[in-house]
């Protein structure tokens, strides 16, 4: 596909060492722009991971002083294609409305870096990657944390020769990474923009993730995680389980009012109820489509590992129990936090806890709750007020 060819051409111009992915899944037929981290990555679990590859995309130009870089963190199922076509789906970048020439994160002024997170499946090291034994890690991949993901991103910045960022930016799990970056590497960024996120996964957040994980692991095709090429049923993964996981999660990304407005109780391509278990309702059809199309682009084991990392996320716990202590060294960093009034996954109350902690260390913080009808997904959608806030804050 055209996008992949473009990337190949850019890869050839890249000063960084390319990495040949192993042909384990259909995603591995794509050559991702990537860098090999020179040092083994220490993990919060106490283990370490050698030979970590970080796949990434960049937009704009790094200036002479190397101080105009903006690091964008993606969400749970996102990837590095923030402002360019996705090589698997052919869809536009997931945040093109926010990142690009003349956009709120203006690539005419800033050098934007977005990396696929550790544990994911778009070219960065994760469960689908070949491990030291010569077969995919699968469930032998170490359990990672959000801080581990950010540690890998910081190591990527070292490879890229970027010491201090103009800003880190992220929504949802990307916002968790932004907050973790501020807590652990405060000297490496001047601004932190965290949108629709939280400093701690709640019992409800964990509960929804556990439903998704159990759906994957209950699918016989999961096979204990060993479903890659040459294993189990020969490369056919737990697509049904992963689809159900995505369906359950997708509900949490939308607001009740949004669902009602979009679907109501309308029927799908029929005039009457079927008195069966077809997708009678539009909302069922929509969720099934969301679930199935997700399996084309995402690895089930990655979904297990990344949701686990999010569930383990508790910045206060990392700082000894008091959230403000996490930000003691970040009091000179400028923060901007944004929540949405219809987001019931990561709420305004969650965000206020972060604001209070930042006020307690007298860090310069802005916070605004924006009104938008789309629930948690608002950060990705058409909310002009968010564009204005991001543009004003990033500068």
């Amino acid at each position, binding site marked *: 596909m055209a996008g992949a060819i473009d990337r190949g051409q850019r890869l050839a111009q890249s000063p960084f060492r390319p990495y040949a992915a192993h042909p384990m899944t259909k995603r591995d037929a794509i050559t991702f722009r990537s860098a090999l981290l020179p040092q083994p990555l220490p993990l919060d679990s106490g283990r370490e991971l050698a030979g970590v590859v970080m796949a990434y995309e960049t937009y704009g130009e790094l200036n002479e002083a190397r101080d105009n870089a903006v690091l964008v963190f993606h969400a749970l199922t996102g990837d590095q294609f923030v402002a360019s076509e996705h090589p698997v789906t052919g869809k536009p970048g997931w945040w093109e409305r926010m990142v690009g020439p003349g956009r709120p994160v203006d690539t005419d002024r800033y050098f934007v870096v977005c990396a696929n997170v550790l544990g994911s499946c778009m070219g960065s090291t994760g469960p689908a990657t070949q491990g030291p034994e010569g077969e995919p890690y699968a469930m032998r991949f170490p359990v990672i944390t959000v801080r581990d993901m950010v540690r890998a991103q910081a190591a990527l910045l070292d490879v890229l020769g970027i010491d201090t960022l103009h800003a880190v930016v992220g929504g949802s799990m990307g916002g968790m990474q932004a907050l973790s970056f501020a807590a652990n590497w405060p000297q490496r960024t001047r601004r932190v923009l965290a949108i629709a996120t939280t400093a701690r996964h709640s019992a409800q957040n964990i509960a929804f993730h556990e439903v998704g994980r159990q759906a994957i692991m209950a699918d016989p095709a999961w096979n204990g995680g060993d479903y890659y090429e040459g294993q189990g049923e020969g490369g056919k993964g737990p697509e049904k389980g992963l689809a159900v996981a995505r369906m359950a999660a997708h509900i949490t990304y939308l607001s009740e009012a949004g669902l009602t407005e979009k679907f109501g109780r309308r029927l799908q391509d029929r005039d009457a109820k079927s008195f069966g278990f077809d997708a009678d309702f539009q909302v069922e059809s929509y969720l099934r489509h969301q679930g199935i199309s997700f399996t084309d682009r995402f690895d089930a084991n990655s979904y297990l590992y990344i949701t686990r990392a999010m569930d383990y996320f508790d910045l206060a716990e990392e700082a000894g129990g008091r959230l403000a202590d996490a930000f003691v060294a970040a009091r000179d960093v400028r923060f901007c936090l944004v929540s949405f009034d219809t987001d019931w996954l990561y709420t305004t109350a969650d965000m206020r806890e972060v604001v209070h902690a930042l006020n307690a260390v007298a860090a310069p913080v*802005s916070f605004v709750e924006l009104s938008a009808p789309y629930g948690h997904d608002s950060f990705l959608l058409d909310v002009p007020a968010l564009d204005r806030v991001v543009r004003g804050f990033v500068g």
Partner: protein
Amino acid sequence: MSELRPDLAKIAAEVPRGVRVLDVGCGDGALMAELRDAKGCDARGMEIDGDAVEQAVARGLSVVQGDADRDLVDYPDAAFDIAILSQTLQTARRPDALLRQLLRIGQTAFVSFPNFAYWRMRLALLLGGRMPVVRHLPVSWYETPNIHHLTITDFEELAAEMGVRIEGSWFFAGGREIGGTNANWRAEHAVFRVRRD
């Protein structure tokens, strides 16, 4: 320079250079921007209205959407040189508690408020027998955010009761500054500079 309201312009003129300022009820950040740009201050703000916060953040200011009655407790003691409370005291659930918070967070505070004892108010109430609707307080009683109307004398007495020292006061009517003689009759707005004794 932007057109600041007279009470805000007075505060902007009185704030020393380069100090740390918290503007409670900062609106769209007009005063904060002035303090940052003209006085080199490190200015932070709090504002309850989301649209105003969005405008302030969009101009590069650090403003938290919050409720002064509830959210000031999270700021550490003496975190700021100066705390500003403009046209907000009369909207607080407990103005005395708010004033105490203000002087816990800031060494010095500027407080501005509309004077309910302005002569037109007195006359309107005396002759009309209704809550006055006048130029500087144009909203009817049932929809006004001003739930604790006060007068200049009320504020001076509250300060004395709380052991708060009044270091300076300025009075305004018809959009310009007036002298202090009979201010409780003549002033529509007052600005006080106060500090803990």
